[in-house]
């Protein structure tokens, strides 16, 4: 059904010359595309934010779990778990110095002059001794230069090796077990109690079999005795100077 004839439209100077032109530019699908675009943009931003969040905490960024190429495929698993060698046998300065120390070639050769004397994998060790040139290891556990970390005080207070270095006794090749990021350090510095154990057990890799409650009870006792105040432990100057 038709409407009655429309009233004629008056022209004024500002009105455009053609008649009957409509203002529609976009097809109906345009809105769908627009919404899709906006959604994609929002999603992209979200992914970027979450991805950034995740990347900063990823094992790639923190280098946890990554094995480095070493001149000798040294197995902590073999030496620690199978042979029962204590950490301090090789990392001798861990109790006295800020560096735990890497063993000199001589230390390797104390055993390997008797054992596996012909093994091909040990050639770089023998070569080092013969030529008086050090073995060039790739560092696994490394902090940035602006972080001052002292092994000796941590060992002295009963922070076990395993707290930061993980189950080295289960590593056929060594990797970084924990993300050495500030939040990791702070976690323990703000609440050291569950991370402390008797100093003679610091190098023990297997769990002590203590319950969480026992851990805390022991840790709190240590903190009382040594007057460890967590309030002063997350201070910037403790590590950065």
């Amino acid at each position, binding site marked *: 059904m038709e*409407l009655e004839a429309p009233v004629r439209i*008056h022209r004024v100077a*500002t009105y455009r010359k053609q*008649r009957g032109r*409509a*203002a529609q*530019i976009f097809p*109906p699908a345009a809105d769908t595309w627009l919404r899709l675009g906006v959604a994609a943009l929002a999603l992209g931003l979200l992914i970027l934010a979450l991805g950034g969040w995740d990347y900063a905490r990823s094992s790639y960024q923190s280098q946890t779990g990554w094995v480095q190429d070493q001149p000798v495929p040294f197995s902590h698993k073999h030496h620690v778990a199978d042979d029962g060698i204590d950490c301090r046998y090789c990392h001798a300065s861990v109790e006295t110095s800020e560096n735990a120390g890497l063993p000199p070639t001589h230390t390797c050769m104390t055993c390997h002059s008797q054992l596996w004397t012909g093994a091909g994998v040990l050639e770089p060790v023998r070569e080092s001794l013969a030529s008086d040139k050090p073995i060039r290891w790739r560092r696994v556990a490394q902090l940035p230069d602006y972080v001052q970390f002292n092994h000796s005080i941590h060992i002295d207070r009963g922070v076990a090796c395993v707290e930061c270095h993980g189950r080295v006794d289960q590593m056929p090749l060594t990797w970084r077990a924990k993300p050495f990021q500030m939040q990791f350090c702070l976690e323990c510095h703000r609440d050291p109690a569950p991370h402390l154990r008797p100093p003679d057990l610091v190098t023990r890799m297997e769990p002590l079999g203590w319950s969480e409650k026992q851990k805390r009870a022991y840790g709190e006792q240590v903190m009382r005795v040594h007057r460890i105040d967590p309030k002063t432990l997350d201070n910037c100057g403790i590590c950065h100077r």
Partner: protein
Amino acid sequence: MADTGRLFAVLAAFDTPERLVEAVRAVRAQGFAQVDAFTPFPVKGLEEALAFRDNRVPAAMLIGGIVGAAGGFLMQVGTNLDYPLRIGGRPLIAVPAFMMITFELMVLGAVLAALAMMFMANRLPRLHHPVFDADGFDLSADDRFYLAILADDHFDRNEAGRALAALGPDAIIDVRERPRS
């Protein structure tokens, strides 16, 4: 102009805002509920004529402002408690110092909420709309003030057309939705 689509509205064009406002009043007096207008600029008195009552934008602004201010303040308190650091011998929770950012985030929250609500309530952005297909629909003109009776379930196009024609518009235009392809 395709006449095949569903009828969206019937438009009547007027050449002055005053006539439009009168027309709106008249149409509403006749009992048309779904009345709206399309104008190139905000027309005085049109809101009253249309009996527009929607306080969602101011309400959103209020809520946004409160959320922004509270969020801003709590963010500052929370982060200071999360990592308490001694700064300049001042108290950890220094309320006067936190007021600046609280205020800024209040403003930001209020504005974002108000504008978001404005767009949402107006269902914008919407690039394609049936009214754009209307012959001569033009926001750039100074003398196009359209009265629209929107189609609803028991909408009678002729009745609407007659009612509009009675107001003596410059033109009466059908607005149809484009058929879905």
